[in-house]
């Protein structure tokens, strides 16, 4: 791995780490969700030092240009992070649906009580 690529990878890792850290500090990003991105940035930084592992491994896999393995590894890490965030979004979507339904049912109950205050509330 050339020194240029090494510096670029490490620099990108540091920048990503700094951005995530600042977002979490400003409470723009929840701590528990930031861990996956901190992991990606640390992987980027570690990749710039990992040529002793990456170069022979790339050669064994028949990859002529070892940094390509680094990029493949980074893409894999990003896919893992995206999968994690997709699962979080799916979970949130389900919860928003459930909240919306509960609010709609509660509004109906409130409307009923407003129109007839003596009516007994229905059991769930």
């Amino acid at each position, binding site marked *: 791995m050339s020194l240029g690529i090494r510096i670029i990878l490490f620099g990108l890792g540091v920048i990503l780490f700094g951005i995530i850290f600042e977002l*979490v*500090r400003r*409470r723009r990003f929840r*701590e*528990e969700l930031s*861990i996956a991105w901190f992991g990606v940035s640390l992987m980027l930084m570690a990749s710039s030092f990992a040529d002793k592992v990456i170069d022979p491994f790339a050669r064994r896999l028949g990859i002529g240009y070892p940094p390509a393995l680094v990029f493949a590894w980074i893409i894999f890490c990003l896919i893992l992070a995206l999968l994690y965030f997709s699962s979080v979004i799916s979970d949130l979507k389900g*919860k928003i649906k*459930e909240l919306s339904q509960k609010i709609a049912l509660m509004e109906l109950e409130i409307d009923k009580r407003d129109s007839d205050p003596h009516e007994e509330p229905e059991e769930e």
Partner: protein
Amino acid sequence: MKHLVILPAFNEEMTVGSVIAETKQNIPFADILVVNDGSVDRTGPVARTQGVTVISHPFNLGYGAALQTGFRFAVRKGYHYAITMDADGQHISSSAQSLVEAMEEHDADVVIGSRFAGGGYKMGTLRKIGVMLFSLIARAYTGINITDPTSGFQLIRRSAFSYLAEGDNYPLDYPDVNIIMALHKKKFKIVEAPVVMEENRFGKSMHSGFRPVLYVIKMVLAIIMVLVRGTGR
């Protein structure tokens, strides 16, 4: 002076009834609120039969979020003190008197019930190491000897729980040494008092599998954020 006991409960139908009955007996001067955190068992109905106030989350939000719901209720209803306890029977409500006395004696804002201060509580080696590590961090930052920073058995004055009830001032999952540090940073006075705790009767624990590792990472990050954030919200 109005006191509120906050019992966050997630799938605690086996214990919540007896915990409420014991709490009524041992802390007769307090009202009781059960925050049913999206339980899928009969926790809510069982609590309701005991005649206490029950707030039910539509789904599980986490222990910290359930407590924060309790703090928000306490703020709204004008309570002066909040006593937080677990609904799994781990916290022995008769110990609450020790918290009240410590608050009066030290004019504190937060009294943390310590299972270790009185001695006699046993736990696994890994957990013990974790608690010791967080105790050291708490002591280094606050200068106070807090032997049980993970304890959820606490007495909190209105000024402090009003702060914790706001926005993101309380974590969704487990409040720990990070909250003690945040409260200290906001100049709230924190002391510790001995309480009696039982090992979880039904052996449920969040400390299993990969979770402890993730928990430590999250806690380290939370501690760093307390250190680097300003004293504002």
